[in-house]
C-alpha cells in the first residue's frame, strides 16, 4: 500500500509509516479527495473517525479509515494553517464525513469546500470564535 501510494501521489505524500496495524500517512490538502477515493477503492469503506488538533504552529486534520475485512487502519493527516484554513470536503466519498467536518469547522474554524451544509453543530450559531484553538 505504501509503495502504491508513493508511486501514485509522489510529492503530495508528505510522509508514510506503518505502526502496527496502522498505516499513518501525511498528505497535502489538494490531494486529499484522491487519496480518500483511492483508499475506498482498496477496501477502506468505514470512516472510523475524523477530527483535528492544534499542534501550535499548524492544525492537523486526521482522517481514520478502516478496512472492516482486514482490520487495517489508514490514518491520513492533513496539515492546515491555524486561521483561514480551507480543505476539500470528503462528504461526496464518505457520508460519515458530514457531521465531523461540521464539528471541525465549529471548533477549529476549518472550512470544507464542497460540504453541502457547513454550519456550526455543537455551539450556537451566534458563537464567536473556535474554542479548540489554543
Amino acid at each position, binding site marked *: 500500500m505504501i509503495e502504491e501510494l508513493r508511486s501514485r501521489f509522489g510529492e503530495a505524500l508528505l510522509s508514510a509509516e506503518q505502526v502496527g*496495524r*496502522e498505516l499513518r500517512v501525511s498528505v497535502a490538502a489538494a490531494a486529499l479527495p484522491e487519496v480518500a477515493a483511492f483508499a475506498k477503492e482498496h477496501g477502506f*469503506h*468505514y*470512516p*472510523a*473517525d475524523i*477530527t483535528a*488538533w*492544534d*499542534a501550535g504552529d499548524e492544525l492537523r486534520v*486526521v482522517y*481514520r479509515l478502516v478496512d*472492516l475485512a482486514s*482490520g487495517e*487502519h489508514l490514518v491520513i493527516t492533513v496539515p492546515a494553517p491555524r486561521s483561514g484554513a480551507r480543505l476539500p470536503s470528503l462528504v461526496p466519498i*464518505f*457520508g*460519515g464525513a*458530514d*457531521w465531523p467536518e461540521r464539528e471541525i469547522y465549529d*471548533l477549529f474554524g476549518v472550512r470544507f469546500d464542497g460540504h453541502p451544509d457547513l454550519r*456550526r*453543530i*455543537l*455551539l*450556537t450559531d451566534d458563537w464567536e470564535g473556535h*474554542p*479548540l484553538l*489554543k
Partner: protein
Amino acid sequence: MTTGLTPTEHITLNMGPQHPSTHGVLRLELELEGEVIVACRPIIGYLHRGIEKMAEARTYPQVLPYTDRLDYLSSSSNNMAYVQAVEKLLGLEVPERAKYLRVISLELNRIASHLVFLATFANDLGATTVFLYGMRERELIMDLFSMWAGARLTQSWIRIGGVGADIPDGFVDQALAFCRLMPKRLDEYDRILTGNRIFRARTEGVGILPPELGVNYGASGPTLRGSGVEFDVRRAEPYEVYGDLDFEVVTRPTCDCMGRYLVRMQEMRQSVRILEQCLKRLPEGEVRAKVPRVIRPPEGEAYGRVESPRGEFACYVVSDGSPRPARVRFRAPSFYHLSVLPRMLQGWKVGDAVAILGSIDIVLGEVDR
C-alpha cells in the same frame, strides 16, 4: 371545511428538545407532507459541556471522571477507551486479574444499557409494563456497581494501570446469581414483547438502514449489526481478554427496527456467557500496575477503541510530553448514528420516527460531549 393547506404544502414540526421519545435534549426538525416525513434535520449541542476542551487543562488521571459523563448509561466503556489510549502511549502492561475485572465491568454495563434500551423502546411504543421489567433487572446490576465503585452510573472504576480497587467479598457469588437469573428474565421479555402483534407491526420492515449506507456513515454496534454487518470491536481488535473468550457476534439481516432490537436482546445472552467465563476463570493477583505519580506519556498519539453498547466508542489522545494531554477526542457512536437518521426517516410517518429513533439507541451525553 377548509384548512388552507393543499396536499403538496409542507409543514415543519419540531420534535424536541423536550420530547419524551428523544431521550434527552435533541431536536428533530421534521418537514412533513401530511403525516409523511420528507426531510429531517437533527439539531444537537444542547448538552455540550466542552469536555474535550476541559481535558486539555487537566492531568491525565483528572480527565477520567469526565469520561463517565459522555455515555452515562455505560460509563465503563468510556473509561476503558480513554484508559486504553493512555496505556498505549505509556506502553503499560496491566495485571491479568485487572483485565478480567474490566471485562466483567464492561459486560455488566452492556446488559444494563441494553435493559434501558429495552425499557424505553417498549415504553415509546406503548408497552409500559416492559419498562418496569427492564428497570427491575437493571437495579440488580446497579447493586453490583455500588459494591465495587460506590456509584451507580459514574463509576470511574477502570483506571490507568488497572482498576480502582479489588472487588469486595461476596461479589462473585452475587454476580453469578445474576447470571443464572438473567436468561430466565430474557425469556420473559420475549414472551411479553418480542412476539406481540402491535410491537411487530411497528418494528418489522420499519426504518431500513442498508448495510453499505451504514458503513459509509460510520455506523457501528447493534445499529450496523442489525443490517447484517458482522463488525464488533471485541472481535476485530480484541482488547483485555476478549480474545480468549467464547462468544458470538450477533447479527440480523433485516436492516429494520426489529433487527436492531433482536441484536441487542441476543447480545445480552452473549454478555451473560462472557460474564460466567470471566467470573469462573478470574485469576488471583494485583489489580493495578505500578503507575508513576505524575503521568507524562512520551510524545505521540494513540487511539483507544472499545465496543460500547452503542457501537465503536473510541478515544484519540495526543501527547506533547507534558503532564496534560494536547488533545483528547471522543469518537461517539451515537454521533454517527444521528447523522444517518435523516436517511432512515425519509418516507416514514411521524409515529414511526419514535420507533426508528428509539431503535438506534442514542445517548445525548456522548453526542454533545
